[in-house]
């Protein structure tokens, strides 16, 4: 039940404002190896063979993605680091950026060599403004050491929108347009920022790269499960006694993480992956965490028996409705209708049709929304209907009772008995 620290291995043991302490721990040896001894194709082959997958949610093979961008013919290519971290309950990237910015920058330097990018951006969420200056200073120190001769890195601040963590909306945001998603294909590796091939990776994904270059693909792929290699950094919050950031081997169980490490007690359910995440009952605590099962961004919120699941889903929906960019019909209108239904269920104004409406809306949004926000907004709704169906029935029965009580029918029938 121990943690396995690869991504977080230097966190806490280096000074995030002094590149010397990072180099003293072996930092930038992977970059020097990649720069002096490896061809771009060899870097990509190694990352591909390692089985490294995206840690931002979708879990796509990182090496495969890089290869697409490498092979695309264009006058310029871009590398973007997604540090928007807007998913509810996710705070691992903040921990990484605060404690080991050089690890990320080294990963970006290597990715830049691999895909042939001359310009990179770190898209930093607006709420992490306090990290802006430290990051800029860290990039400056790397530049002074001469490790950024092939590519420049600019820190770009977002404006506080969850949707701008979605890769195409993020690119729109950098281009100075509305933060809205684009349809795919074309995918960013072929046509991304300003129409040019672009690689966009999560902070944690890039953090893994130096370790893979140093220790080899075989070492990395020996860790984890069939399709999920390496470790995952989790952000655990909610009803636990030790909330925080934990790094575990892929395939570790929910129980190890939430009960063993974070100290949850009296659990009713957990939500994995933020507001668009799966909601699983405590009976499923033995589920392993991996791309094959449940993972998302690695946000795990523990809910104890005092929590009402429908309140939780209503809260998720409130967030998603607020953050919907409004571009496509199913998400723009669907989240609003769902919010109305949850509001009625909360006020005791529900009726039987509500369950069918929620189900039909969720299924429609999941398959027809333009981007991942609308598609995944259905997940907590469908999961709560699946695992906590009786909670909905209770709410509807309570609504019936309230209505009949308020309309005085109870009185009437009592009088009838007398």
């Amino acid at each position: 039940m121990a943690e396995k620290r690869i991504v977080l291995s230097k966190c806490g043991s280096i000074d995030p404002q002094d590149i010397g302490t990072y180099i003293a721990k072996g930092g930038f040896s992977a970059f020097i190896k990649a720069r002096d001894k490896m061809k771009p194709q060899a870097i990509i082959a190694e990352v591909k063979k390692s089985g490294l997958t995206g840690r931002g949610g979708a879990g796509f093979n990182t090496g495969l993605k890089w290869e697409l961008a490498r092979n695309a013919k264009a006058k310029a290519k871009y590398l973007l680091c997604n540090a928007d971290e807007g998913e509810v309950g996710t705070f691992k990237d903040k921990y990484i950026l605060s404690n080991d910015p050089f690890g990320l920058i080294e990963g970006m330097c290597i990715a830049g060599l691999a895909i042939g990018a001359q310009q990179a951006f770190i898209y930093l969420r607006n709420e992490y403004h306090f990290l802006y200056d430290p990051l800029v200073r860290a990039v400056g120190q790397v530049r002074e050491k001469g490790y950024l001769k092939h590519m420049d890195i600019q820190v770009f601040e977002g404006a506080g929108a969850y949707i701008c963590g979605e890769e195409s909306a993020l690119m729109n945001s950098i281009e100075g347009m509305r933060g809205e998603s684009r349809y795919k294909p074309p995918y960013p590796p072929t046509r991304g920022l300003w129409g040019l091939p672009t690689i966009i990776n999560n902070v944690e994904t890039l953090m893994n790269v130096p370790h893979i270059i140093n220790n080899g693909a075989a070492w990395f792929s020996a860790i984890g499960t069939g399709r999920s290699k390496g470790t995952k950094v989790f952000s655990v919050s909610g009803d636990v006694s030790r909330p925080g950031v934990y790094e575990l081997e892929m395939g570790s169980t929910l129980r190890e993480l939430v009960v063993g490490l974070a100290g949850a007690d009296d659990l009713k359910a957990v939500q994995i992956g933020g507001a668009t995440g799966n909601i699983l009952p405590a009976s499923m605590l033995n589920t392993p965490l991996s791309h094959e099962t449940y993972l998302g961004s690695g946000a795990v919120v523990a809910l104890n028996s005092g929590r009402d699941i429908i309140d939780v889903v209503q809260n998720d929906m409130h967030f998603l409705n607020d953050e919907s960019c409004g571009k496509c019909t199913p998400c723009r209108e669907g989240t609003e209708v769902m919010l109305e239904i949850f509001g009625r269920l909360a006020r005791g104004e529900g009726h039987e049709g509500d369950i069918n409406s929620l189900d039909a809306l969720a299924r429609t949004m999941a398959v027809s929304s333009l981007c991942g926000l609308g598609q995944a907004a259905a997940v907590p709704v469908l999961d709560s209907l699946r695992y906590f169906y009786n909670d909905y029935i209770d709410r509807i029965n309570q609504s019936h009772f309230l209505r009949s009580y308020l309309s005085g029918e109870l009185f009437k029938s009592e009088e009838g008995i007398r």
Partner: protein
Amino acid sequence: MGNVNVNIDGRKIRVREGSTILEAATANGITIPTLCHIKGQVPSGVCRVCVVEVEGSKTMMGACHTPVAEGMVIHSKSPKVIAVRKVIVELLLTAHTGDCVNDSNAENCALHNLASDYEVGAPHFNVRNPRFYPAEESNPYVKRDMSKCILCRKCVKVCGEVVRKDVLSIGYRGFKSKVVSGFDEALTAEACRDCLKCIEHCPTGALSAPARV
């Protein structure tokens, strides 16, 4: 560019590589509904009524913007597709306000026509605050009744990409999105001249020519 083979609704079709599913279907007499697409323009992909099933894909694909690929198997009228389109049409009707909602002779409205094609009756969804805006007649050429707007963005597209005036844009976000002029100001005669292209493309009664006095 060469040709590719695809299968739409059981029919084998050969089309030019790079065409969209919508183009491939239309060229072969298969109709797929659209509300936001303008032929010949870069697709918007916002209304989602054109979604189709593509075998091997977890989600449905927008026919107006998804290019065909060799061997693609597409279902444009499967029960699942029809069910999804019905919900989308019902959602578009839900957020509406204005007399047209109960108007049986709204046959000039593409949304109403689609609703009758798909046998969608009065919506049974509700929203907390349906979009309601007073009708604007500040402009001598264009009357704007944004309560009837379905946010298809065709007007924004023609105004910007076709006539290159860029008078209209999308303001606000999410459910509160609205087609605005400037920072949501009245559409003045100085800003908007009389090209009337937006009226021509608006699928609903949101944009119309003011009655002549």
